[in-house]
Structures are given as structure tokens and as C-alpha cells.
């Protein structure tokens, strides 16, 4: 390999894009060519000095909603009406079944709306200075902060040892009611765990939903409705929920 080839391929080497054979060739050349070795070192240093996160732009919320507004909306409204109408005229469906369906459809719509609110609250929290009202990785600082702000004491659990760092807490509103938002992070991703009092509701297992590219794990436990929202993938969010539930039971 000559210097001309090496000066091109050393970039692919830095980027981890070379197969084993080519990587060995480039490394062999660099071992005997001080000039190319110096180049490799310089570019590696230059690259390590770059901080991609600070060079990235964040799309404004107004643009996001503009795009969402231009895409066809989910045709839920007409569907619901046609479903109900269909059952009303359908000879096979009894009145009892129709009313059962109605309740199911309405409830699912309501949940969808609240899901949208939860994701919006998550997005709002990501704006600068909106993430936490109380910033602490100590659960014994975060939990008492909610005293007197909510009807219930939200479960604040430190999961740092399990890979989810506690960042703090925040008072938020979902469905026009105050809720606790407990904030975690996984690598560079923020997880908001929203807890709303749901007195008298029975335990409901976890369901994973996805909205606007965000994953939401929703469940009901100990008279609380919980939603964990994040842009991490569904598997990791499931892991978060499982670990949280396990820690809660201890």
C-alpha cells in the first residue's frame, strides 16, 4: 500500500468502516510510514475534539406540530360513528352488545387523548429549564418535595445502580390534574415517569404504546396510574418498568 491509498483509508479506519483485511493493510503501512502515522494521530485527535451534540440542531416544536398538522389525522371520529351506526343498523348485533362496544370505544378514545397529553408533557419537559423542579439523585430529597403538592405520595425510587439515573422530580399536569413527574435518564435519553392518583382502580398490567415516535409504558398499581415516556427503544423502556415495579415491591 502506498501513502496515497493509506491517506484515504485511514479515515475509514478511524470510522471503523474497514474490513479486517484492509484494516490490517493500513495498519501495516502506518507501522512503517511515520508520515501516515502522524496523519492518523492528528485526525484522531481532531475528531475526538469534536462534540457532535453541540453541533446538532433541535427542530422547533412549531415545525414538529406544523408537519403533524399537514399529515392525515387518524380517522378515529368517523370510524367511531360508523362503528356505532353499523351496529345500530346491523341485524346481528343486539342492543346489549352495541352498548358494550360503545363503552369500549369511548374508553379507548379517552386513553388515547391522555396518552397524547402525557407525550406532550414529556416533550415540554425537554425544553430548556423545564425538566426538574427539584434536582437531586437522592430519592429521600425528591420524595418529600412532593409533600403537600399531591394527594398521594408518589413512589420515588433510585434506580441508578440498575442503569437508570434519578435526576429529580417535577409537578406536571395531565388531564387538568396535578401529577408527579419523576425524571430518570438512560445514557443521553430522558425518561419521564408520570404518576397520577387513581383511587379505587384495580391493578392493570403494563401495556406498551407508541405515539409520535415516543414509547409509553402504562400500568396501574397501588391506586396509581403510571406512564413511563421516553425516546429509548421499547425493550429498554420495558426493562425500566420491570425494574421499577420490582423495586416498588421490595
Amino acid at each position, binding site marked *: 500500500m502506498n501513502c496515497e491509498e493509506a491517506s*484515504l*483509508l485511514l*479515515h*475509514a479506519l478511524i*470510522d471503523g*468502516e474497514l474490513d479486517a483485511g484492509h484494516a490490517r493493510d493500513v495498519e501495516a503501512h502506518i507501522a512503517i510510514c511515520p508520515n501516515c502515522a502522524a496523519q492518523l494521530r*492528528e*485526525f484522531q485527535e*481532531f*475528531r475526538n*475534539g*469534536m*462534540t*457532535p*451534540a*453541540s*453541533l*446538532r*440542531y*433541535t*427542530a422547533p416544536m412549531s*415545525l*414538529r406540530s*406544523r*408537519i*403533524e398538522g*399537514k*399529515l*392525515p*389525522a*387518524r*380517522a*378515529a371520529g*368517523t*370510524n*367511531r360513528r*360508523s*362503528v356505532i*351506526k*353499523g351496529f345500530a*343498523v*346491523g341485524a*346481528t348485533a343486539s342492543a346489549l352488545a352495541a352498548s358494550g*362496544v360503545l363503552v*369500549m*370505544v369511548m374508553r*379507548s*378514545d379517552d386513553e388515547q387523548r391522555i396518552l397524547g397529553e402525557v407525550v406532550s408533557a414529556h416533550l415540554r419537559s*425537554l*425544553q*430548556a429549564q423545564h*425538566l426538574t423542579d427539584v*434536582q437531586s439523585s437522592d430519592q429521600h430529597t425528591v420524595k418529600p418535595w412532593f409533600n403537600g403538592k399531591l394527594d398521594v405520595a408518589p413512589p420515588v425510587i433510585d434506580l441508578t445502580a440498575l442503569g437508570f439515573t434519578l*435526576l429529580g422530580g417535577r409537578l406536571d399536569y395531565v388531564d387538568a390534574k396535578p401529577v408527579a413527574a419523576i425524571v430518570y*435518564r438512560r445514557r*443521553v435519553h430522558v425518561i419521564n415517569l408520570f404518576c397520577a392518583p387513581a383511587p379505587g382502580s384495580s391493578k392493570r398490567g403494563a401495556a406498551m404504546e*407508541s405515539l*409520535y*415516535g415516543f414509547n409509553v409504558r402504562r400500568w396501574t398499581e397501588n391506586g396509581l396510574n403510571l406512564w413511563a415516556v421516553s*425516546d429509548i427503544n421499547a425493550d429498554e423502556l420495558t426493562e425500566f418498568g420491570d425494574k421499577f415495579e420490582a423495586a416498588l415491591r421490595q
Partner: protein
Amino acid sequence: MGGVERIMFSADKAGNPVMAGGAVDGNDGGKAERFKQLALPHLDAIYTLARYLLRNTSDADDAVQECYLRAFRHFDSFRGGPIKPWLLAILRNVCHASYAGNTRLVYTADAGSEPDATAAKPIWREDSETPEQMVLRRHESETMWRLIGELPAEFKEVIVLREINDLSYRDIATVIAAPIGTVMSRLARGRKMLREAWIAAEGEGGSP
């Protein structure tokens, strides 16, 4: 929502004509939902490329919106695989089609405003970093941002795609519709130019 679709489906089996109409709407809505779930998470990456390629914010906004609408119109022709390069390629086409030859922009050196360094860095505070370090880091980022913006277009786009959006060579080749060899040579040349500009900037007035 899954509940509603299930109900509609069973009703459809009952053979009610009303149900058929509802199902078509449902598919359209379903397509839009699938598209949103796949495409919207990449909004920041798309927006970042647009901001580096186009001069001002409103042009970048318009180009990104046009990119998403175009992508949705052609969503049926999307053959799976990673959607990010596909979207970036559409954005690049939009930038070329709408603005190429137009004197007011494309591929001009002076971009509008710098990335919001406060928003771009993690929104929790890193304990290890002093305010002085933060100021220095911010200052360096601003210089880097300006220098990338000043690169000629064909080098700028591969640098943004590789260093900022973290695409593989194969994906970059898809976006710029060129062979991988071209990606490699442009990246090598672009990095060389960027590094030399960086060193020159550092030489001026002590700090970059």
C-alpha cells in the same frame, strides 16, 4: 386504538357495508400513524442537515416540511430498511430542487444562526464541568459550527452526515447517491480542509 380497529374488523366480517368504508379511512389513518412513528424521531437529524445546507431558518423549516410531506406521499415506495437515509436523501433533493440555482441560498457559507448549544447539550448539568469549561466548550463549538458551514457543499454534506448525524458510509452513499469510494474521498478531503481551517482559526487572536 388497537381496540377500535379490532372492533371494526369483526364488524367487517359481519358483512356490513358501512364497515368497509370505515376500514379504508382506518388504513389511511394507520398509514399516517406508521409514517409518523417511523419518520418523526429523525426530525432533529433532518433539521440539522437542512440548517447546514440552507442559509436561513425559514428556508430550512420549509424544506424539512416539504421533505416530510414528500416522504409521506411516496411512503408506499419505501422498501423497508433504515428510514433515516431515505428521508435525508429526500431532504437533499428538496434542497436541490427548490433552491439550486437560486441566488438567495443553497450551499452558501453563511448559515443563519448557530445551533443552540444550551439546548443541544444534555439538559441535566454534568457535575464534573466548571462554568469556565462550559464557556470554552461553547466557544469551540461555535467555531466548529462556523467552519463546517463554510465548507463547499459536497464536503459539508458528508461531514454533517458522518460527524454530526453519525451515518455509516453505506448510508451516506445512499443519501448523496454516489458510490462509497466517493464518500471516502470527500470525507478525507473535507476533514483535511476542516482541520486546516480549525488550525488557522486557532492561530488567529490566540483562541479559536
